[in-house]
């Protein structure tokens, strides 16, 4: 009985093995080590209004994880994005969001509103 079930399972497993194995990819993605929340992250805040970041320049210490809080105080949806700092997040009118930025080397990093490229800002790491 158990053997029969096993063999049936194996049969089912065989025909569905493709799906099952493919699902593993997704599961592996989902279960990747959930890292301990980075200690000592600095939190910076920036507001967007009238297509301008306020402040337009953010400052953060080097080699420290950074959380950037973004508030959309304008009258139009924005996409807070940076290729150099690896984030993209849609922030509807009146909403707030936070993006996590990994520790950075000294430098000047650009971020922008992907819906309105005239809106530019910088993160400066001394």
């Amino acid at each position: 009985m158990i053997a029969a079930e096993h063999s049936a399972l194996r049969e089912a497993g065989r025909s569905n093995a493709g799906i099952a194995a493919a699902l593993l990819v997704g599961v592996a993605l989902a279960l990747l080590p959930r890292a301990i929340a980075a200690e000592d992250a600095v939190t910076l805040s920036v507001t967007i209004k009238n297509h301008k970041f306020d402040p337009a320049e953010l400052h953060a210490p080097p080699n420290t994880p950074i959380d950037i809080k973004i508030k959309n105080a304008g009258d139009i949806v924005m996409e807070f994005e940076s290729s150099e700092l690896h984030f993209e997040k849609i922030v509807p009118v009146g909403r707030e969001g936070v993006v996590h930025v990994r520790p950075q080397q000294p430098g000047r990093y650009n971020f922008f509103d992907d819906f309105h490229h005239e809106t530019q800002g910088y993160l400066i790491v001394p």
Partner: protein
Amino acid sequence: MLAALLIVFREVFEAGLIVGIVMAVTAGVPARTLWVMGGVVAGVLGAGVVALFTGALSELFNGSGQEIFNASILAFAVVMLTWHNVWMARHGREMAAELHAAGEAVVEGSKSLAALGAVVAIAVLREGSEVVLFLYGVAAAQGGASFAMVVGGFVGLFLGALVCLATYLGLVSIPQRYLFGVTSALIALLAAGMAAQAIAFLEQANILTALDQTVWDTSWLISDSSFLGRGLHTLIGYVGQPTAMQLVVYAATLAVMIVLMKLFGAPPPERPRIAAAE
């Protein structure tokens, strides 16, 4: 008008590349138009729903709702693409060679079509929700949809659709005997790129911090925000500054797909026995 045109074109262009590939992959399969169109329609409807709930979505999971949502649907698309490629490795050659019983092939084939239809829906949903949010935002800010915005949107949609058509025509012009290999490779790279993109969302949400250092920087050569960069991002997951974890997952996705295709793939058809039987 120009802003609406550019944004709509940009997003339709990205979704159009994927739709074009799927159309080429399924060329000659009965009822594929239905599945692809179904995927587009489902994606457009989904885009509207996602756009409507973006505010609420972003507040889920301590403000990481958007990232987790994006990472999840990308992971789902990766599974669908993998499943499709594995299925094709098993049945594709038989179907191409018309050795398979037609009826069975259609029934089995529709499962694979459903997987690709889901991929189309996800691509359209992701890009479309940005279009909806942007156009709605512009309309709301100026107190109604302007004529210029509508014209810009339609021109952008039309140009984006041309990219989809060009992708499709370019691919189907490849000789039949190479097409299978080319489309399998494209699907594999598409899946690996999506997996790496899912990782980027998890990193941004601070769910994943392991191996998060940048490995190389080619953004001076191809910027992520250029059209070439965006196109390559959609097709092969190009990013100018990938993290180590993105590269690991990219390679792992490709490796898993190749292993599965080998494991479940049909034995090579070039056997003297078969040749003799014919």
